[in-house]
């Protein structure tokens, strides 16, 4: 790989190698405030390489690679190189992480206690996390919550927040002074723009938090809230975990502890404002 970028996000070190300068330059810029991997040794290596040797010059596209590879990972145009790098980092985590139980969830923290938000793509978990960060919550991550099987605590993984389509102007309005990456139009998920987590999120990314509330938000519905029993939460979270099976009994222990100790609610919301009010009300009632 001609160009290399290294970064530590929470407890995980990455090395991203690329055939092109552009994605690495963009990552260096957006992750400028982040530390390097401890002892210079990354946990995961991500490679962005040319789909064909000649494609570096002709219609360049980026193919994802790494220690763990999904064969269907599709090449993306070079203009989406940043997106490819972010996706490849997620892929490495999803397939290779063994130390923590990985939940596909956004996480914010207040007073040492964590709020986890999980749900299908489009449920609004990244948007809600960014909007709560704008209200003083600490952003711990918009993609993965890392549950430590030994302690039950959640570790932060505050990579760039991936905002899609209608969420982009809402979050820009809520965080007018925040840094954003370039608008990446025409991706398989529509328009994407990355939000750089604020200084507090990066400075405190080594501080884990006690999980206090699990929410399953759903965007685009009349306001409703429903408590969820531990067994339903367990099933939903096994579906939201990329490595539950791979962790074996450690995963079982981590997840049973989480669903027995932490209350959970499903909330439907028509717009971001209603969701934030609902989250604050639920949190105040804990």
């Amino acid at each position, binding site marked *: 790989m001609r160009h290399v970028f290294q970064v530590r996000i929470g407890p995980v070190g990455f090395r991203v190698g690329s055939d092109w300068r552009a994605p690495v330059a963009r990552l260096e810029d957006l992750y400028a405030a982040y530390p390097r991997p401890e002892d210079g040794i990354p946990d995961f290596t991500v490679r962005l390489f040319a789909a064909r040797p000649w494609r570096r010059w002709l219609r360049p596209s980026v193919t994802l690679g790494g220690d763990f590879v999904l064969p269907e990972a599709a090449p993306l145009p070079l203009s989406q190189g940043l997106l490819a790098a972010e996706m490849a980092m997620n892929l490495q985590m999803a397939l290779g992480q063994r130390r923590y139980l990985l939940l596909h969830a956004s996480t914010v923290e207040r007073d040492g206690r964590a709020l986890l938000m999980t749900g299908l793509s489009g449920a609004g978990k990244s948007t809600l996390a960014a909007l709560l960060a704008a209200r003083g919550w600490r952003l711990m991550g918009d993609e993965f919550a890392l549950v430590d099987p030994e302690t039950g605590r959640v570790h932060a993984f505050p990579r760039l927040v991936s905002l899609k389509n209608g969420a982009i102007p809402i979050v820009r309005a809520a965080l007018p002074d925040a840094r954003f990456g370039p608008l990446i139009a025409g991706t398989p998920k529509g328009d994407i723009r990355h939000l750089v987590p604020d200084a507090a999120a990066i400075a405190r990314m080594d501080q884990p938090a006690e999980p206090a509330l699990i929410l399953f938000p759903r965007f685009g519905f009349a306001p409703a809230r429903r408590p969820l029993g531990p*067994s339903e939460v367990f099933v939903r979270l096994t579906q939201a975990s990329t490595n539950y099976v791979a962790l074996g*009994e450690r995963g*079982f222990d981590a997840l049973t502890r989480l*669903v*027995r100790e932490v209350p959970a609610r499903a909330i439907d919301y028509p717009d971001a404002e209603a969701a934030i009010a609902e989250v604050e009300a639920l949190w105040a009632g804990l």
Partner: protein
Amino acid sequence: MAERLFHAEPAEALRIVPLDDFTLVFHRPSGLTHLVTAPAPEILAILAGGPRTRDALLQRLAEAYDLADPSPEALDARLAELVAAGLVRAA
């Protein structure tokens, strides 16, 4: 022909965690997690005390859990499910 005996998996093979109406059973040899509901946890609890025939199991279930309508057919179906899941052996 002797009646079949149903055996539980060895105690160290299972992690059983009651949650609410459902109980989680982690099967260590396979690494599989099962979500079961009554009367499966009760069946596993009785068989943990030693193998039993279907009729002995039904009698014990009726005594211990105050079954309103002890049905051999229903118990056969539940046992078949537990055998298929690998949580109970028939021999």
